[in-house]
């Protein structure tokens, strides 16, 4: 599904990712944890194709395709999805027509027929129940005037509608209260399948109480310094990151 080898990325000549390796197989959920500034969001952005990052070495392949050479929209059409840490407000662009356009672009790419307004509405209404989102938010411009929790639910709604094979959740839990967190996680869990994979990037362990990962990786200073199961997340919750970082440094 996703294969990242020795990925080295810099921003304005400052190295951020310093040789990152990650293998994600179909059906797996990987959590990437780490302290602030460890490179978590950079990883999410590079994988989704945001400008402003320079890949200095290494590779990233998705379903065998060279991800780093693909335009962001092609990555999306091939089934990748990034849930933004800070979803963007887009005044004047209606939430429903935006999502319909996005879905139909993806369907066209897959050689499927485009959905008409009626079929699309019935799909979106079904998926909205998943994230317990108010219907009026569909009529509003994308994310405009949404609360923090509504924005994150809107991300999960988009994910549910676009039905990606690989979803990257960039700190989706940040700024969420416990109820919103439960709803967002519930949405993710309902979308889990043997074919879909998730990369869940988070600073805190608490999201992983609701989304149970198969693997937990600790990112520090641009490298994965430790991988384990969900127990590793619990240990991090208890002991923090410092002991791991020290351990990693003493190995060098």
């Amino acid at each position, binding site marked *: 599904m996703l294969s990242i080898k020795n990925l080295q990325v810099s921003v304005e000549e400052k190295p951020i990712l310093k040789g990152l390796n990650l293998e994600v197989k179909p059906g797996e959920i990987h959590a990437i944890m780490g302290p602030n500034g460890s490179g978590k969001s950079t990883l999410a952005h590079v994988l*989704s194709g945001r*400008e402003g990052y320079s890949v200095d070495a290494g590779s990233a392949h998705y379903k065998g395709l060279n991800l780093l050479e693909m335009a962001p929209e092609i990555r*999306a059409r091939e089934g990748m999805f990034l849930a933004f840490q800070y979803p963007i407000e887009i*005044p*004047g662009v209606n939430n429903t027509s935006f999502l319909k356009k996005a879905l139909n*672009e993806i369907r066209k790419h897959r050689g499927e027929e485009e959905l008409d307004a009626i079929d699309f509405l019935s799909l979106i209404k079904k998926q909205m129940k998943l994230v317990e989102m108010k219907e009026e938010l569909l009529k509003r411009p994308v994310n405009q005037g949404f609360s923090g929790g509504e924005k994150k639910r809107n991300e999960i709604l*988009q994910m549910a509608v*676009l039905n990606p094979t690989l979803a990257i959740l960039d700190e989706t839990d940040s700024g969420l209260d416990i109820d919103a967190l439960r709803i967002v996680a519930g949405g993710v869990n309902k979308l889990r399948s043997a074919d879909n994979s998730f990369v869940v990037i988070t600073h805190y362990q608490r999201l992983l109480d609701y989304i149970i990962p198969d693997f937990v990786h600790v990112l520090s200073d641009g490298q994965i310094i430790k991988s384990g199961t969900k127990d590793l997340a619990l240990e991090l919750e208890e002991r923090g990151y410092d002991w791991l970082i020290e351990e990693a440094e003493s190995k060098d």
Partner: protein
Amino acid sequence: MAHTTNNFSEWVNLQLDSDSSFAVSEAVRSPSLSKLAGGVFPTRKDEEWRYTPLGDLLDSSPGRDTTVVLDHEYIESLKQAMPSAHTIVFLNGEYSQKYSDSPTALEDSGLNISPLGQLEGTALKLAEDTILNSTLTDDNIFQHIALGLSQNGLFIEVNKNIEGQTPIHVIYISTAHGVTAFTSPVNVIRVSSNSHLKVVEQYASLGEAAVITVPASYVQLEDGAGLDYYKIGIENARTNHICNTSVRVAGSGTFRSHQYLLGSNLTRSNLEVSFTGPGAEAILRGVYLGDENQHLDVRTYLDHAHPHCSSDQHFRGILNGHSRGVFNGLVLVQEHAQKTDAQQSNKNLLLSRDARVDTKPQLEIFADDVKCAHGATVGELDSDALFYLQSRGIDKKDATLMLTRAFAAEVTQEIDIDSLQTYVQDKISASLDEIVIPSV
């Protein structure tokens, strides 16, 4: 102003002696005629015209196109904007009975609509008083061109206490084959106390030759009256359009204006609003969309001469290619105009490196208890928003289109006539489809 001879002023001088019929009487015309006889046209050295070149216009020598051929479908496509309105068509400056709805449709409606040239008696007096009352200054040469040379125009009068009247759709079509076409319609709109009316003025041009359009419109709203006044400019790229609009709003009156400048080679729109009583309101909206070498110049002047009045202006520009936009808005709050609320915003989106905009919102406040704000921005598309759309599978060209349309929609969504909103948004989308090229 420098006195220079040019083709256009020579042509204007020839017209002064013409014996054709004119829209207004000699008494109203003559001051304008003497101004025109002086032949003084502004140049870029005049502060008011610094950004707006008149070269193309002044080089031209209009003639008369006698080969007018309009097909039915063309007229219908223009009518689409307002299918259920009462339509009045002016063709090359003349009232077209053939394409206009019959005036009998408005009998007993409380609405008096007539070509200006056909007015007589008290109605003519009323129309000319409205013109003479205008705020347009004496050095406004294009007002004098309109008044001095206009062959026709439209007079609309609404009696007292008339609500929910059929909107009026006035279409001005210029056709130019072989020679430059010239028209200068003069329009007078009067809305009596506690009445409300919607008027849409639409300007279109056809043909391979150049077109000059110099309208002057005079609007007067009595106490508590309301007017929604839309101007839609979709003329071809050989058209130079210079218009002046003077609006006087009495106490508790509401003037709502929308201008969509979506065509032409050069447009300069000057809109002056003056409050003549307390508690009046003006809401001014507009979008100008330019490509290639188009030049679009929007000027507004708001005279807060009375207390408790409010004005709210929101203009947006989208400029591509080598096009140029100008926004110049002046709000004057006079000394005794306490409790004035005046807001003014101008936002511009530049889609190419060679596009340019000059924006100058100005506030002159002489009262001390007022709420006034103004702001202007010039920018490019939000790269975060572009990426967000791309990350959902929408390619860069479509994402650019969506965001640019959305930028205009922030204004067009306030058009409260559904067919007109769709028409304007479709026009904007169609233009953007042609001009937006992905900068990948």
